[in-house]
């Protein structure tokens, strides 16, 4: 089963990652879920697909009462991101889900009513989260056409959805990036194929470079810390994207 690991804690403000499930069937992509707590507010980012719900729920229950979840943040509409929504709502029907306005009529196919969703505008927005500000950062076309990330200036954490994601081999599944050069080899093909727009990539790199980021937390793979964050942004800024046949 997955395990929850604390990434940041200051008073009642906390970031935890739920990651690495050794029992996950190999036909399901591995995902990281992040639990952001601030006072009485608890947000789960990209809560994952239906099939991994038991593992996520179990790990989450060890660190918080699931009744405390107030919000879900869906970076985009993919099934590995948000197809478990109906299950979270089965447990607590008043959870609100932040997602791009673009997906507010698509994601309900996974679950949720009209008032479940808080549409995110294309330009992003600021969220007052338990007295702490959280910034919703636009990341459109990276890879989804309606895509947002979540930045916490207090924790200096950027939840970056699929950006920074890596499809790691089993022997290289540490929670944090330890060897940047080795790590990006596992990230390269993914970014070349999934990220289709240079303009969108450049806009995101420009935006991300201006943020004070201690940890860049993707939905798949390992977390970038410290200097590796800017190294990743620079690497991504130089990468050829929109490549149909990686390695061809």
């Amino acid at each position: 089963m997955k395990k929850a690991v604390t990434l940041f804690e200051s008073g009642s403000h906390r970031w935890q990652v739920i990651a690495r499930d050794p029992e996950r069937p190999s036909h399901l992509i591995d995902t990281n879920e992040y639990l952001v707590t601030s006072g009485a507010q608890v947000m789960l980012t990209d809560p994952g697909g239906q099939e991994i719900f038991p593992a996520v729920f179990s790990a989450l229950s060890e660190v918080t009462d699931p009744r405390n979840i107030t919000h879900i943040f869906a970076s985009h509409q993919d099934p590995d991101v948000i197809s478990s929504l109906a299950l979270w709502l089965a447990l607590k029907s008043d959870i609100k889900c932040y997602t791009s306005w673009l997906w507010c009529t698509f994601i309900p196919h996974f679950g949720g009513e009209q008032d479940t969703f808080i549409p995110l505008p294309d330009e992003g927005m600021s969220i007052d989260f338990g007295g702490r500000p959280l910034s919703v950062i636009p990341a459109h076309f990276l890879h989804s056409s309606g895509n947002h990330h979540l930045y916490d200036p207090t924790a200096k954490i950027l939840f970056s959805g699929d950006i920074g994601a890596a499809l790691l081999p089993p022997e290289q599944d540490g929670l944090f990036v330890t060897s940047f050069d080795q790590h990006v080899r596992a990230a390269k093909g993914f970014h070349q194929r999934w990220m289709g727009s240079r303009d969108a990539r450049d806009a995101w790199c420009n935006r991300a470079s201006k943020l004070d980021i201690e940890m860049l937390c993707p939905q798949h793979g390992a977390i970038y810390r410290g200097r590796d964050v800017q190294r990743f942004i620079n690497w991504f800024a130089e990468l050829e994207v929109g490549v149909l046949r990686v390695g061809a």
Partner: protein
Amino acid sequence: MTSLNEAAKELISRSFQVNLLALDAMVQSKRGGSSLRGFDEVSSQMRSWSRDLHKELEHLRQLSRDVVVDVSTASKEGHLLRLLARAAASAGNELATQTVTARRADESEREEQLKRRWREVLDAVGDLDQLGMMAVVLSRSAMIEASSGSAEQRAQLNDVSQQFYSNSEAVVNVLKGLLKVMRQA
């Protein structure tokens, strides 16, 4: 449901044929005067029968659509319940356990509703079967009434009666086959 839809198509086609035949027979028997009043009456009843069959088939089709929706919902909810139960078992969490218990109660209710609906479908097919038997009786009456006409009329009306009969028999056979498949389901 595939066999039900196929059967419904066949029955609608038979009902349509009987309707046209009956209309034509009514025109012919009216021309034949008072000696064919009986045939006219039987033809009129065959026409009403075809309309009743059509109406009952619509009811059956609506019931079958409801069953499909119920089965799909049960399948989706059953999958979610299994995932919630796995979560409850691995987390030992009170909220998840309560949710699973409530959902199991909903699932039992859904199963009961599905059983009720299925019985309604079987009843509807049973009613159609009775309707089919009635058509066989009516078409036999048509054969008897056909003998009241002149020699030329008899030949024509016998032919119509035979067609009533073959359509009625086909309806009965389709429904018997359908009932057999559905009772095995």
